[in-house]
């Protein structure tokens, strides 16, 4: 009999399954809907994967392969082309695969379904609907298959992933005509930005929105709007890549009746990565906008510890105290505290802000009582690791924990 089903065979799901086997859990099944397990890193041919979990630097595809091979080597059953499409009335998972339609069940389920970039339509960018409008996810796969990606590309977004899209475009022979962000500056490391600017020479238009896309069969031009002076600028290009602006792939969580956190839009989880529904855990980027693969993997590894302890326990499922964020803070993850007050993955909470703040004064309170205060540097699209030394001070019977930035 299957002990644990992990939905999603990316870094989080595979790392979770691997750790479950290491902890002696007998029968672990990973269901992955893609043709090959390994997740998003399969398509990211550049280096930089594996630092935090394997303590070495690997390319995305090698990193993905390593996880799939290790999981299988450890006795995990990894089923590919197997998509979980919903929950049956008796809480089993409905699965479609080339082998047929079946329902599978296990005492514990881990959702590790990852996240995706918001495409153009979800961002309500008006204009015509020509070919050549991509997300980074699609761009990387087109490039990997050696299919055309266009000749002159505009990159929307200025996060790490946006620069990664820029590299993919350059390697595929496309000229990057510019990069835009609605924020006042880019969100990648200064070194990376400087290197990219020097090597590829393209403008970065900050405080700039995409006002319109036009073109009949293929993109012909894009109208940019300067958000400061409302001036319009028209850029001739045949490709637009919408990068970042992540949203968790939370469909299975929502139809399963799990509560979502309004900030992350992923399932609400406590520090043991337990969701609000008994026996369902969640890990990795389904919990929040994209973190690097190794951080997602460590989240999966952390969930495995909780799952293993729960399987060995009395089967009770704890009530939690939610953690809420006030603007400009965007989200915090995990976003609940259970009575056992476990430490979160990597010993800290991931905190995101919508604004750049160099030395933000942060306060954590419950029912007005100050649990912690401190300073942190906040950059939109990048997480700050918030210490967790205050979780034992949380009153399990009290109101929500509030995280806020003090002004002045």
């Amino acid at each position, binding site marked *: 009999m299957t002990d644990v089903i992990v939905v999603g065979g990316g870094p989080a799901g595979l790392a979770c399954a691997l750790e479950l086997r290491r902890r002696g859990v007998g029968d672990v099944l990973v269901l992955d809907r893609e043709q090959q397990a390994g997740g998003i890193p399969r398509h990211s041919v550049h280096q930089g994967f594996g630092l935090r979990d394997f303590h070495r630097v690997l390319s995305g595809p090698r990193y993905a392969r390593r996880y799939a091979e290790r999981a299988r080597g450890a006795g995990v059953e990894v089923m590919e082309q197997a998509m979980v499409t919903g929950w049956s009335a008796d809480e089993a998972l409905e699965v479609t695969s*080339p082998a047929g339609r079946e329902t599978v069940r296990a005492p514990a389920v881990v959702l590790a379904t990852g996240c995706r970039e918001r495409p153009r339509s*979800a961002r*309500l960018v008006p204009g015509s609907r020509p070919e050549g409008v991509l997300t980074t996810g699609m761009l990387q796969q087109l490039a990997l298959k050696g*299919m055309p990606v266009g000749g002159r590309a505009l990159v929307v977004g200025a996060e790490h992933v946006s620069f990664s899209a820029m590299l993919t475009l350059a390697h595929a022979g496309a000229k990057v005509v510019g990069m835009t962000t609605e924020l006042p500056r880019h969100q990648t490391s200064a070194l990376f930005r400087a290197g990219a600017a020097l090597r590829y020479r393209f403008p970065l238009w900050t405080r700039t929105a995409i006002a319109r896309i036009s073109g009949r069969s293929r993109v012909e031009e894009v109208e940019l709007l300067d958000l400061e002076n409302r001036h319009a600028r028209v850029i001739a290009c045949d490709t637009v890549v919408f990068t970042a602006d992540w949203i968790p792939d939370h469909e299975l969580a*929502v139809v399963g009746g799990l509560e979502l956190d309004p900030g992350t839009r992923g399932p609400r989880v406590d520090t043991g990565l337990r969701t609000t529904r008994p026996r369902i855990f969640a890990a990795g980027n389904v919990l929040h906008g994209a973190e690097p693969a190794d951080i997602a993997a460590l989240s999966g590894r952390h969930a495995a510890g909780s799952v293993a302890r729960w399987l060995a326990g009395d089967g009770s499922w704890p009530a939690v105290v939610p953690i809420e964020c006030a603007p400009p803070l965007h989200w915090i993850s995990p976003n609940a505290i259970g009575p056992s007050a476990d430490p979160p993955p990597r010993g800290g909470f991931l905190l995101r802000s919508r604004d750049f703040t160099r030395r933000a004064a942060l306060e954590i309170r419950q029912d007005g009582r100050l649990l912690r205060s401190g300073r942190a540097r906040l950059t939109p699209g990048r997480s700050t690791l918030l210490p967790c030394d205050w979780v034992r001070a949380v009153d399990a019977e009290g109101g929500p924990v509030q995280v806020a930035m003090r002004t002045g």
Partner: protein
Amino acid sequence: MSEEAPDRDVVIIGAGVVGAAIARELSRYELRCTLVEAGADVGAGTSKANTALLHSGFDAKPGTLEARLVRRGHELLSEYAPRAGIPLERTGALVVAWSEEQLGSFPGILARAHQNGYTAIGRLAVDELYRREPKLGPGAVGGLEVPDEGIVCAFTPPLAYATEAVACGCELRLGTSVTGMQRLERGGFRIETSTGRLTTRFLVNAAGLRSDEIDRMLGHEGFTVTPRRGELIVFDKLSRPLVNHILLAVPTGTTKGVLVAPTVYGNVLLGPTAENLQDKTDTSSTRAGLEYLRSEGERILPALLAHEVTAVYAGLRAATEHDAYQIQIHGAEGYACVGGIRSTGLSASLAIAEHVRAELGEAGLPLHPKRDLPDVRMPNIGEDFPRPYVEQDRIAAHSDFGRIVCFCERVTRGEILDALAAPIPAADLDGLRRRTRVLMGRCQGFYCGAQVRELLAGTR
């Protein structure tokens, strides 16, 4: 100079939902038919981008041809859809009044429905309205229930009609635009097209947005098409539980207003706008249009706005200076003009075809029914009926029906390969979208965009 006899009995110009329906109808008789389409696919113009409603005709202008054809078309399509695999759900519609003034127009709407012979319409008290639609925004003062309004797939009907026509021997010429036309001395027409010359005894103009231009080539000056753009927003499937019926606005003199409706694919639709244009190709969405729709949506179904947007599109209605269908049968010439068909065209399509066939018969087109008509059944792409990914038998017969390529819309490799090898095959990504729903989902190709392009390229 002597002329050869025309080599065809009927040429139908335009393979939108109306032209394809007429081709289907006429190819059921012993006739040499050709369906000519300027675009690369059937149903790829105005027909693909409407609100996809099955109208009962309760609010049509009484006594008009449109009123009669919508009513009859509703009956015919309701009967045909399940046989042909066209997704159709009779959800019913609620007309919602938001002010005393709008409530005051209810007696007139009821009277008009009764004049149209539609008596199933009824009033709903406010508490009953909110019981039926608990997520309706605050401030509604009353409603009308129209149980026979429904939602239908806009993509499948023209494909089903054209597939059936082709199976009955109709010639389909895609990518063929009409460049000129002359009358033949002994009756009939010579049509110059981008793919060669055609001659025919009878001609049907179902050219939609270009129907006025075709009409003018024959010297008629009956009407001018002014494209009326409608922008629409499609919300994520997770919003589907918010709404049970089609939520209609109380019509004003100029527009039917913005509606909220479920779709047969399991999404929720908000729209349309109504804006007259000059350019017959401008299907762009606009900042102003989308903002207006969101403000209307906020009022009608506030919870909808918190959901992710899956798609935005715009369609052009073939509006004219007349408020009626421009269906004119020039019997002596052997010419039928079927223009100015606006948003009710999908609902009325089979009745329009029946009407045109009868009129052409009156005008001398010999109608000898064929025997052994083929049964055409399109692959189901609606949510209300089982799709291949849940069908154990289909997957067991061919494992490609268990290989989900498009995760968001659950489209399998088997369906994609079938659509690429169909009697009227998908020629491009849009064609594949309309036949399978692939790439139409919330990720818009993030996961499967490259793989689908590869499958498409593999067949070319």
